[in-house]
């Protein structure tokens, strides 16, 4: 179709064609690409350039053009400026570090750099900045540095910026040209200076110490320049430098303070505040006056940030929150003053702002405002209950609720609530019962599966806080009875893991239960078989515990009623366990179930099945027969001692008893082993010890062997050398020993190799029956190719 090239589509045609063929875009583009391939094969430079331009456009839309890289280089080398530009553009868009035609470009770029035309130099440099490889960087570094003195400022500034990229790939270049770059700071042209500042900023971020010497120059620029862009970069640079040079802080405070108070530019203000915070200029340590001024500065910053928050522009709110988060660790009281406006930001429909506020609030929580904060956060989770059925949400609320229903967001909020409440071992909670209520509310309205964290919280609070235990246990009973948890409709959303906590707590503290029988009935429900195996296992254990306790309590009021209820309960439990749990696929559940059913069988044997006889005795009140001994038998199993939580560092606080030396040997260490046959066991035991002695790192794991090492250093060097020689002998012919460390195991190995090789008999093969006789070579190995074949 396009044989002559006369009808080749130009770039405009291509674009128009794509816009017209919206429906069959893929096929149209495929056809175009085929045409482009044909065009590229021809030798016409115009066609080629046009084809590359089209390809670049298609590449932007997502179609790969790496197959055309050679053609791109051809177009790049075209003498015409327009085509050169197209070529470089194509290169920039499609080349990456592995494109092999890049080496062809080295000379090309060199030529372009030396060109008289500043624009040509410009596009060459620009293209270079994108396709730099370490090789290109090395080759072109010298040329670029020479161009730093070019007459045109445009060129100078571009060279500076591309040098930065060069230094990233070829760090050696930096050392050679650093002084030249420094000179550019004094350049008459402001754009060149600004470019130099940019580059130095970037370099300094990676390695601040080297650039401290430039500080005075930069300081002069800071105070004299009015170019906001450059000022911002310089300030950022100082933020990176101040940690290394504390005197800078003092010098910088006045100009920065002036800037903060006077500049109308928001971005500059923000940058100053950011630097002040990040650079540690607000540190309150040091001399009195310094601390005072630092505090004043902090106060000014926070006031300015407050104005950000009050501004209707969302952007300012966002960065205001960001900065406040940074200033929080050092001046929490200042931030707390503005708590009201921060809390308002939580309700903002914009999710970015909300996330920032969450961060800030989490850092700000303390005893007084905890309840309020948590209430606010929970109210965020609530709408899911009201809105999920109704479809009449206005457009404004639609997106907000959509965000609220986002499971990651909800999980995040819940996690943060738990975090702020449990900080510092619950230092912030004054009323644990309130906290438990919050946790159970969360279980109900969560809508996401945060069961694990909630479960841990319940257990933690239940175990540690004695005073709230009775409330905890009541709450847990309610959870156990909650049908939504025990029979969840969608398992990903449910928080049934809290049932594990519920079961465990009820079991452990069943003394506080009002009605143990209801608990037992709840636990033995049919629906429990569908729960997670870990939960089932805990259920079983709890059942036994509660049963033991209840049985024990029956002892004190043993009558006919009690007997009957005992019989019923035993039967209920036995049936329940046999049906549901004994055949469970999970091993833990099965094991526990069978243990319990055996125990219950034993108990059942001892439970009197016949109605009690009331013996009429001489005394007034009819005495009851004694309760069977079995009633009290299980109780001690679980309830002899109360388990208390132990802090992880508690062991260290236990004083070591007198006369006990933990460091001394328990018995004399065994002397160095005699050389034995290389049994597998010995191999595993012995080798590490020898390596431990020889190698410097000494990574032997067994303490005994380490002791051996220590002892060896006390032995004479003679004995050591003797043992070493013996060992060498052994290891020479040991097939298991791989070698390493000590003197020349390599040469050993080599000699071994040579030995082996030479001892192999060389056979002369005569191939009479074949066309070519093959001569046997000295080296029998044909793989490495040595010798003729």
């Amino acid at each position, binding site marked *: 179709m396009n044989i002559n090239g006369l009808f080749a589509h130009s770039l405009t045609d291509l674009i128009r064609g794509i816009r017209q063929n919206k429906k069959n875009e893929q096929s149209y583009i495929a056809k175009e690409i085929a045409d482009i391939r044909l065009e590229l094969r021809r030798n016409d430079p115009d066609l080629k350039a046009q084809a590359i331009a089209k390809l670049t456009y298609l590449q932007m839309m997502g179609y790969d053009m790496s197959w055309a890289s050679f053609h791109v280089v051809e177009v790049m080398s075209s003498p015409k400026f327009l085509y050169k*530009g197209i070529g470089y553009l194509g290169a920039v*868009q499609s080349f990456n570090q592995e494109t092999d035609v890049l080496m062809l470009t080295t000379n090309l770029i060199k030529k372009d750099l030396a060109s008289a035309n500043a624009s040509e130099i*410009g596009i060459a440099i620009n293209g270079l900045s994108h396709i730099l490889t370490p090789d290109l960087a090395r080759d072109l570094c010298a040329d670029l540095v020479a161009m730093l003195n070019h007459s045109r400022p445009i060129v100078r500034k571009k060279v500076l910026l591309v040098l930065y990229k060069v230094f990233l790939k070829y760090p050696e270049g930096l050392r050679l040209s650093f002084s030249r770059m420094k000179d550019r700071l004094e350049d008459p042209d402001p754009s060149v200076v600004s470019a130099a500042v940019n*580059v130095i900023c970037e370099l300094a971020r990676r390695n601040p110490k080297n650039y401290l010497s430039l500080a005075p120059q930069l300081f002069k620029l800071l105070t004299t320049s009015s170019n906001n862009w450059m000022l911002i970069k310089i300030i950022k640079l100082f933020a990176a430098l101040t940690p290394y040079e504390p005197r800078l802080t003092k010098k910088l405070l006045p100009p920065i303070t002036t800037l903060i108070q006077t500049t109308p530019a928001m971005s500059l203000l923000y940058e100053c505040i950011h630097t002040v915070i990040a650079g540690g200029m607000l540190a309150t340590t040091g001399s009195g006056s310094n601390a005072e001024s630092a505090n004043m500065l902090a106060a000014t910053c926070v006031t300015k940030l407050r104005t950000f928050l009050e501004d209707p522009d969302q952007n300012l709110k966002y960065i205001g929150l960001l900065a406040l988060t940074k200033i929080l660790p050092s001046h929490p009281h200042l931030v707390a003053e503005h708590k009201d406006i921060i809390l308002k930001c939580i309700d903002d429909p*914009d999710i970015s702002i909300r996330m920032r506020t969450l961060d800030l609030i989490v850092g700000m929580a303390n005893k007084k405002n905890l309840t309020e904060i948590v209430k606010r956060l929970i109210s965020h989770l609530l709408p899911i209950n009201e809105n999920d059925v109704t479809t009449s949400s206005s457009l404004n609320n639609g997106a907000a609720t959509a965000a609220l229903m986002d499971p990651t967001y909800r999980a995040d909020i819940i996690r943060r609530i738990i975090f702020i409440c449990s900080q510092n071992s619950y230092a912030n909670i004054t009323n644990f019962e309130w906290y438990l209520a919050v946790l159970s509310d969360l279980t109900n309205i969560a809508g996401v599966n945060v069961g694990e964290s909630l479960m841990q919280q319940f257990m933690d609070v239940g175990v540690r806080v004695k005073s709230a235990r009775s409330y905890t246990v009541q709450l847990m009973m309610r959870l156990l009875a909650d049908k939504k948890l025990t029979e969840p409709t969608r398992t990903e959303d449910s928080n049934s893991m809290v049932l594990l906590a519920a079961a465990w707590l009820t079991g452990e503290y069943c003394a506080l239960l009002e009605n143990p029988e209801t608990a037992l009935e709840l636990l033995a429900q049919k629906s429990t078989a569908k729960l997670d195996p870990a939960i089932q296992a805990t259920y079983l254990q709890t059942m036994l515990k509660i049963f033991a306790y209840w049985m024990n309590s029956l002892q004190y009021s043993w009558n006919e009623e009690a007997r009957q209820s005992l019989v019923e309960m035993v039967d209920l439990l036995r049936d329940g366990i046999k049906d549901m749990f004994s055949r469970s696929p999970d091993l833990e559940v099965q094991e526990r179930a069978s243990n319990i059913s055996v125990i219950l069988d034993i108990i059942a044997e001892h439970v009197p099945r016949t109605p009690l006889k009331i013996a009429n005795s001489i005394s007034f009140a009819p005495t009851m027969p004694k309760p069977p001994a079995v009633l009290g038998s299980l109780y001690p199993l679980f309830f002899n001692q109360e388990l208390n939580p132990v802090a992880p560092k508690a062991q260290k606080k236990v004083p070591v008893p007198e006369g006990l030396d933990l460091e001394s040997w328990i018995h004399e260490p065994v002397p160095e082993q005699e050389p034995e046959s290389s049994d597998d066991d010995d191999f595993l035991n012995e080798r590490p010890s020898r390596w431990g002695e020889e190698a410097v790192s000494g990574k032997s794991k067994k303490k005994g062997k380490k002791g051996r090492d220590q002892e060896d250093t006390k032995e004479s060097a003679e004995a050591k050398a003797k043992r070493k020689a013996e060992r060498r002998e052994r290891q020479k012919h040991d097939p298991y020993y791989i070698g390493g460390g000590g003197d020349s195991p390599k040469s050993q190995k080599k000699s071994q190799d040579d030995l082996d090789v030479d001892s192999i008999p060389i056979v002369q093969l005569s191939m009479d029956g074949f066309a070519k006789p093959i001569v046997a070579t000295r080296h029998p190995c044909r793989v490495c190719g040595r010798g003729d074949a």
Partner: protein
Amino acid sequence: MPINYVLLVSRQGKTRLAKWFTTLSPKEKSKIVKDVTQLVLARRTKMCNFLEYKDTKVIYRRYASLYFITGVSPEDNELLTLEIIHRYVEVLDRYFGNVSELDLIFNFERAYYILDELLLAGEMQESSKTAPLKAIQDHDAIEMEEANEEKNK
């Protein structure tokens, strides 16, 4: 610190310009474009112009039917990047004279060249408005010359 990429995306999600200042594989590039476009197009007008994507920040601004999106590293000054975007739009406006999306579609190489004059290796090269303009006009002059030579040959 430097800008990692600049994308121009229409309201329908079509990429009008994509400039990358880091080397990435094409797959990664298209993934980033897809994800970031989705995130930005889902925002409403009142929301703030800063987003977080993985561990980078995304800063965008909407001009008529085009979204100008930039990806920067987390320590960058967001307001400054917004200014850079605005500077680019101003230069485009001066060059094309009341620039519209159609101008950018049909003259996408010019758009790239102007961006190159403004940003090099992800850093702001030139903060004045007139200098890039002048550079591009020089470019055009040379092209005109060459085209005239061709015609006269």
